[in-house]
């Protein structure tokens, strides 16, 4: 599929014009790249915070970070990774590729789209500026009351957290409304709901979850802000407030939030695996509906984060059962991916490696998630390193691996250049090995009684070896990310020879040049199936012939 590369004379636009172009852009592709680059920088920041944590915990009675700095580190690590890295990375890919996937020229509200980005950047900078103004937030990314009340969180650290998260919440809500309207209204002619690419289904479901879940977070933090600044008593027990109210509100947001994180990852992997198996996604509609099911059920499981708070037995039964239930549509996806690969002709390029890594790591994370849904088991392992292990298997082994798959997959489309395959493979293997060294021992630590969020631990209780291995794993992961960064920079310098369709892919984004022209499509295409490009290239095997 190589195309002739037309060499045009390179016109050097003055730096100022380029800068303004990016700052004032309302083009979804540029906004997508802004999101991706900014989020990647925050990812590195969060990664450094993690490295500091691991160095402090490498040995007992660590003296690298005192408790105050440690608490800031783990709070900012969590907050940064969830709000400033993972979510915006997914939004970045969504921004760039959803309009292309549905055959549109841009999103429904391009100016609002730009606003979302700048709110995100402001929120991130604002929250991180706290380091310069008395210290970063230090009560955990989940900020449980009453620890976060004025009496126990002195100074303005938690106010930075509240206001920063508020900005980010507004940015995400606006962006999600934009995506929903785009997905519903701007699909190309012929693209019925069932012919919409799976990544768009994921984006759509994610946006719906966000639109309904983020208000709960806004409520929670508004009430906290009022308590801290106006002296109200929502969470203040002495005056009739309720300490557990925060947890209900936060987790009503917090649980759907983790599906906001993972559904785009599912979407990416569901696009990549078929391409590199040279077969369609197995059981497409089942996979699509499983996303909807997950989205709906995700609002009914929040209290499984609260099994130790003294809930009624009936509540415990309900939330446990429901949490088991949500494992079913998730499992269905895993089988669908296996079914897609079965009988296919698998090409192990870097995007595919990361997708396969995703499947096996997410499987482990999902299984440990089922474990914590078992109430009596959760009573032992909640708030321990077992949960830290679980959450990182799904969010790092899961979401980050999928995001890297997307990055390698879509890099040629965004830049016209191919990333280096060998470096990509080294990145994958190092990250895979490092990740398991980092998080598997943590599961063991949880079983051995190590609680979460402790700045150090004593010698002689038997936690040293696992912690040391975990720290070594962290360094290996760090090296792998450096390799990725090197690959990224080097590949950007190569000549743009990727062509429109380097992977022999299926969907509309691969029908236009790499990078796409300003208005995406010279003419809006009409589609007859889920895989319009496949139909074009392999007319005898076209989907529409099989009535898809």
């Amino acid at each position, binding site marked *: 599929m190589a195309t002739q590369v037309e060499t045009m004379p390179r016109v050097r636009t003055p730096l100022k014009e380029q800068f303004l172009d990016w700052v004032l852009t309302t083009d979804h592709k540029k906004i997508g790249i802004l999101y991706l680059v900014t989020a990647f920088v925050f990812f590195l920041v969060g990664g450094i915070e993690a490295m500091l944590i691991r160095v402090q915990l490498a040995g007992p009675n660590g003296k690298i970070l005192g408790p105050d700095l440690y608490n800031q580190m783990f709070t900012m690590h969590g907050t940064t990774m969830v709000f400033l890295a993972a979510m915006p990375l997914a939004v970045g890919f969504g921004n760039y590729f959803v309009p292309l996937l549905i055959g549109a020229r841009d999103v429904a509200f391009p100016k609002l789209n730009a606003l979302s980005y700048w709110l995100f950047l402001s929120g991130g900078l604002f929250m991180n500026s706290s380091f310069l103004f008395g210290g970063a937030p230090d009560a955990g990314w989940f900020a449980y009351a009453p620890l976060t009340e004025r009496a126990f969180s002195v100074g303005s650290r938690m106010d930075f957290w509240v206001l920063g998260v508020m900005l980010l919440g507004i940015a995400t809500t606006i962006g999600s409304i934009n995506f929903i309207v785009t997905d519903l209204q701007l699909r190309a002619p012929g693209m019925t709901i069932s012919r919409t690419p799976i990544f768009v289904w994921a984006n759509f479901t994610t946006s719906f979850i966000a639109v309904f879940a983020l208000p709960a977070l806004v*409520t929670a933090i508004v009430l906290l802000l009022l308590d801290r600044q106006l002296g109200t008593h929502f969470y203040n027990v002495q005056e009739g407030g309720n300490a557990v109210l925060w947890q*209900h509100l936060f987790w009503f947001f917090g649980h759907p939030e983790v599906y906001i994180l993972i559904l785009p990852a599912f979407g990416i992997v569901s696009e990549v695996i078929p391409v590199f198996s040279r077969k369609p996604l197995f059981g497409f509609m089942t996979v699509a509906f499983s996303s909807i099911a997950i989205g709906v059920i995700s609002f009914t499981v929040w209290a499984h984060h609260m099994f130790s708070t003294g809930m009624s037995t009936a509540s415990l039964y309900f939330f446990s059962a429901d949490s088991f239930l949500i494992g079913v549509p998730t499992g269905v996806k895993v089988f669908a991916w296996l079914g897609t690969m079965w009988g296919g002709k698998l090409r192990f390029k870097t995007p595919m490696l990361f997708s396969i890594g995703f499947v096996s790591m997410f499987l482990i994370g999902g299984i440990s998630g089922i474990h914590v849904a078992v109430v009596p088991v959760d009573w032992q392992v909640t708030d321990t390193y077992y949960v830290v292990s679980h959450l990182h298997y799904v969010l790092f082994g899961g979401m980050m691996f999928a995001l890297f798959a997307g990055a390698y997959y879509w890099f040629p489309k965004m830049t016209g250049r191919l990333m280096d395959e060998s470096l990509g493979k080294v990145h994958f293997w190092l990250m895979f090995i490092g990740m398991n060294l980092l998080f598997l021992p943590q599961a063991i630590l949880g079983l051995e009684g190590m609680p979460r969020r402790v700045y150090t631990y004593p010698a002689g209780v038997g936690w040293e070896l696992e912690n040391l291995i975990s720290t070594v794993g962290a360094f290996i992961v760090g090296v792998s990310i450096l390799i990725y960064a090197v690959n990224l920079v080097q590949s950007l310098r190569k000549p743009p020879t990727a062509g429109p369709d380097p992977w022999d892919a299926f969907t509309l984004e691969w029908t236009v040049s790499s990078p796409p022209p300003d208005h995406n499509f010279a003419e809006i295409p009409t589609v007859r199936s889920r895989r319009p490009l496949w139909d074009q290239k392999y007319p005898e095997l076209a989907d529409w012939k099989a009535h898809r």
Partner: protein
Amino acid sequence: MNRTGLASPSSSARSTRRSDQTARVALLVTLGSETFFFGTLLAAYLYMRAGQPDWPLTHAPLARLAIPGANTLVLLASALTAYFALRSVRKGRISNLVRWLSVTLVLGLVFIGGQVFEYTSNGMQPADQAFGGVFFTLMGFHALHMVAGILVMVLALLRARLGDFTSRRHVAVQIGTWFWFYVVGVWVVLFTALYLV
């Protein structure tokens, strides 16, 4: 294009319907989100109240309900006038539209004035134990939405007077009145939950 009205009918009509629908979908999604916001605030209120048998406004004397009750009637009336405004523009009667929008606006302002009077005269403070905070937070956010609704109505009124709307092109009026209905609806729920129960 609205003012000269000389574009080719079929494609522009289709794209108008398309962009109108986009605006309506955007509003509906936004209102969905807002419902979860008010919903979680209300849930927080109910949760806190469940733990406290002695809630200040339980069994409030009828006189206590006079002002907020009257304000409720004012707001309900404004919903009716907003509906008349929408009906007028659908029939192309722009002068009626202007009239009904103005009445709606006035009623909205009366409501806000009435509530401000109620808050300043009932002696409650936000920091009054748990109740004060909940009361003023719920009322406060509703008030913010009222202000937003009023601004949207003002905008619609100005555009109506400039002749921007026709019987076919008036999605801004539709959005404005739907939002107004929503804010009135939220008030009814809040009034019931905070004053009547």
